[in-house]
């Protein structure tokens, strides 16, 4: 349903998106994860036709977004990161307008608008102006405007940024409902927990490149059962590295050094809690000190850390 092949977007020397490829099927949610500035929105803009790719291809429901742009756009629903609503037009008129912009007319439009209003929980506020709505209500209407024409593919660009927990939960329900009704959803976020909760498969993007891709289970398997251990304090760089290597030599074969700075080190290993005394001893033997310890179970957040050596929200 959605295919992206070797897609690149350059701005002069800056490579915003670097030959990314992925595909997503009907009735699935594909997550595109990465920190701010990783290239997620640029990729979305290329797929939606807002930007022309420098190279590569993207197709929506079999229509190339560049050579057959109009047909591709007809099958595409976009929910942009920033609100894109007429604040001075009643909610129902917003939905009608955007439905017509996608060629929906007559009774089909009226039925769909009523359905979407119900779906986004704004039936009782249909005649009100969005400027009188709360932030969450505006987000829901923003979502409704993107799906009012029943698109085959929906691009959701960080839809939960700045949304209160209640509206976020409602948005999740709406995404799941669209997926269950057969839509293919491309969901970008930098919240790993959202991706784990919603996505059937996902890709992790950093500096414009896809650095991992697969189902959530496949990506978790890459971590194995290893925990992520982050120690804060003071660590002599070379001595600490040698001490950790010595621990590996002494039998901690799955211990892996991910990142080190003078005030923190990050390690992964299985059953980390059982090995904490040995690690503390090793650090103490180098003249270093530990002031704070953070132990995390394996998840996508730790996978990102493993792959990039940095936190997702950095």
């Amino acid at each position: 349903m959605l295919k992206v092949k070797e897609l690149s977007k350059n701005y002069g020397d800056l490579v915003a998106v670097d030959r990314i490829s992925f595909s997503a099927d009907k009735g699935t949610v594909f997550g595109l994860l990465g920190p701010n500035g990783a290239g997620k929105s640029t990729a979305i803009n290329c797929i939606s036709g807002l930007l022309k790719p420098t190279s590569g291809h993207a197709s929506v429901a079999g229509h190339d977004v560049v050579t057959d742009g109009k047909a591709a756009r007809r099958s595409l629903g976009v929910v942009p990161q920033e609100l894109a609503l007429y604040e001075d037009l009643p909610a129902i008129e917003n939905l009608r307008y955007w439905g017509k912009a996608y060629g929906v007319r007559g009774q089909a439009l009226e039925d769909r608008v009523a359905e979407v209003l119900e779906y986004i929980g704004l039936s009782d506020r249909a005649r009100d102006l969005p400027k009188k709505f709360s932030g969450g209500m505006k987000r829901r209407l923003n979502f409704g405007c993107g799906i009012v024409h029943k698109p085959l593919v929906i691009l959701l660009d960080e839809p939960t940024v700045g949304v209160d927990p209640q509206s976020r939960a409602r948005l999740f329900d709406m995404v799941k409902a669209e997926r269950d009704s057969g839509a293919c959803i491309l969901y970008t976020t930098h919240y790993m927990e959202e991706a784990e909760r919603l996505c059937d498969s996902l890709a992790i993007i950093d500096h414009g490149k896809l650095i991992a891709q697969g189902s959530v289970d496949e990506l978790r398997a890459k971590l194995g059962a290893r925990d992520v251990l982050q120690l804060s304090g003071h660590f002599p760089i070379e001595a600490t590295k040698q001490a950790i290597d010595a621990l590996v030599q002494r039998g901690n074969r799955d211990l892996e050094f991910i990142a080190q700075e003078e005030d923190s080190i990050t390690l992964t290993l299985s059953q980390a809690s059982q090995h904490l005394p040995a690690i503390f001893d090793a650090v103490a033997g180098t003249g270093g000190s530990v002031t704070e310890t953070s132990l995390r179970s394996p998840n996508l957040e730790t996978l990102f850390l493993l792959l990039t050596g940095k936190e997702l929200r950095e």
Partner: protein
Amino acid sequence: MSFALTSFRKDISRWRQDYMATLIWISIPLMIGGLITMLMGSGVTPHGILLVVDEDETFLSELVVSAYGARELGELISVEKTNFDDGLERVDAGEASALLVIPNGFSDAFFEFTPVTLTLRTNPSQTVLPGIISNVTEILLDAGFYAQELFGDEIRMYVSMTDDPGDAQVAAIAVAIQHKLQSVAPRLFPPVINIEIAEPPPGEPAPPLALLFMPGIILMAVMFSANGLASDYWRERSQGTLRRLVFAPAQLGQFVAGKALAAAAIIGLVGGLTLVLGFLYHGISWSKLPASLIWISASGVALFAWFAALQMLFSTQRAASVVSTAILFPLLMAGGSFFPMAVMPGWIAVIGRASPNGFVADRLTREIVESGAWLIDLTSWLIVAGAAVVGLGICTWRLRTGFARA
């Protein structure tokens, strides 16, 4: 074309939520127009009051007083007799144009060739009417001097007669006057200087200045509306709706056409209201209204399109707003919205007529001032239509080339 209508309905619906802006577009020009029309008047002839204190109360003083109310002068000036204190108070209060004091003994002094002083006190808050009264007084004094010179003896003889003069006495005075006239006739007839007065060709009377000012006022409302509506592209951009529109298969050209239709409707309403008020005030024939209304609506769309195209050239809304406002007011001045082009110096009027709004105002002036209806020529209609099409084309081009995507 159906999306153009959708876009049109959307903009009209949004406009209904913000009618205050429209009230401002109408009320400012009406306020300015009303003030200037009050200052100029609407073609009504000025009329003043001359207060006369006649202390002499003789035949001659009556003759002088009646001279001010004679013939055409009587349409300009009403003469009222009063006493000195009342006259002084009324002139100082600005209720009269001038106060003339004819002193006791004026008549005797006139016939006896002795000096006498007439006092004329004028109202300093008026300029035209006191000037006319002052000039008339000087002419009367000149006439009196020449009458003294020529017929002083005869007049004295007539006045000195206590009883009704007999036929022989009247005949003697008449003969004496006749002789004097005959003696000066060779020097007066034929006159040494012949003055030929060239009458202007018969035509329609010049329209009042306030009427000539009306198109400029209407164009001010149209310009405010066009500029205000043009900024909606920036509003849409900041709301993210232009960007969302690019995601959709709807054509940007139809979106622009819809906006133009909405602008035509709103400008038609604003211009229509100001036109109707102007027609009512000046008593203009209603048969001229359809052409005038269509003309300003069509021109309004062209102005809207060019304001929008201009505003979309800038990278920030603030810069767009500052520049379009900076252009708007000089255009209003040149185009006759603050001074009718009819009273501008020739070269400024030429520039004014060449300005976009001046061009429109000039044709509208012709439509409402001259007799008949549908007087605007085909070339002017084509120029406006062409300007609108080109302006809207530039708007569409700017939307496609990045304005909507930002």
